[in-house]
């Protein structure tokens, strides 16, 4: 009995020590040395400037192709619930930053087609309501 009691802590020490070292190694490998590689990402995780480019290009493509369904599908990749929200947001940011009037107009025409408008950007729509 005395021998068992004497051995139990040593066995536990080795086991717990191994788990702790293994865990530390696993965290280091998984987060720093060999993290998950993302290669099949969607547009919603693009850097903000690329997201802005994406939205502007979707608005331009809509102007050329006049395919609202396709434009909506593309924007749903950024915001599945309110696809027009990122577009109006970008248009307002461009207005504040003094961005290209042509881009703002395109974005707003798309937002208008999607049924979303904000008072700030309405003047950029020209003849459209």
């Amino acid at each position: 009995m005395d021998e068992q009691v004497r051995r139990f802590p040593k066995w536990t020490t080795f086991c717990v020590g191994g788990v702790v070292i293994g865990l530390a190694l696993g965290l280091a490998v998984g987060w720093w040395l060999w993290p998950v590689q993302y290669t099949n990402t969607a547009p919603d995780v693009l850097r903000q400037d690329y997201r802005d480019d994406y939205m502007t290009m979707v608005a331009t493509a809509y102007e050329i192709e006049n395919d609202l369904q396709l434009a909506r599908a593309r924007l749903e990749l950024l915001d599945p619930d309110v696809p027009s929200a990122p577009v109006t947001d970008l248009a307002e940011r461009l207005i504040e930053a003094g961005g290209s009037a042509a881009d703002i107009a395109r974005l707003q025409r798309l937002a208008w087609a999607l049924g979303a408008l904000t008072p700030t950007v309405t003047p950029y729509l020209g003849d459209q309501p």
Partner: protein
Amino acid sequence: MSGLSRHYVVGVIGLAIGLALGLLYTWVIDPVELVNTYPALLRTDYRQDWVRLVALSYVANGDLEWARGRLQGLDQEDVATAVQAQIEEYAAGGRSADTLRSLATLAEAMGVHTPAMWVYLYPPTSSPPAAPIAPSRTPTSTPTPTSLPLASPEPTVPVPEPTPIPTPTPLGSSPLVTPTPAPMSTPPPPTPTPPLLARLHLAGQEQICEPGQRPHLEVVVTDERGRGVSGVEVWLMWSGGADRAVTGLKPQRGAGYADFNAEPGASYELGVGELGMPLVTDLQVRPCVQDEAEEPLVGSWRIVLGPRPLEGELEGESGS
């Protein structure tokens, strides 16, 4: 096994368990999240859509440097595939020549080369770097492109029927005639060769009866040597409509190949180049001649369009 080595085994097992738990946590439960990614990391279909969007934006703004910047870092093959597919889709859809020209310009800048691009990149006054058409055997005064019309999906003025011009037989073409060198001061006037498009005519027509195929019209445009000519705009016209195709978009079927779907009962006219110059009229898909036991089958047509021989060539052939 001694007590110490048993302890080491337990330690190693603990290490393995810890490592597994660590990796489970970092790879599955709480992996690194990328939020500021870039287009090259997009899934293939999104990446190709990105390229299409860049191409359309280039059509709108004409800024090549801007487009290059947006395509930077993307795999060249992705760019080529997406731009090529877009050009072909737009050409088949009858988009405006300006749009197609812009796309072709971007494609060329990105190192993409397809036969369909030549139509839009090189106007009739110039020739592409590697034109697939054999040079004419008749001397010409100025380089004349034998195909590659400027694409125009809108109906335009019909091209007048060309009048073949007699051309001199090349010196030394017949071994029985001793060539007399012409005086240096009065060289024979060069005669312009009519372009290939203006000389095309129906060179062959064959019914295709293959079960399981939709009725269609295959068109093959060939040059003087019977080689397929790519980049030729072919029009299929019928009462109340028209469709356009460009030869060479299906390279596996040959450089001069293009095809159209056809409906039984409709009468079609076939033309090349600018709309309004039918070379084949009253073209209809018809049932194939079969045994009574076989299922009825509507055949397709294979139309071969080749150049009419020049008068000089005809005379040469009849004289030899």
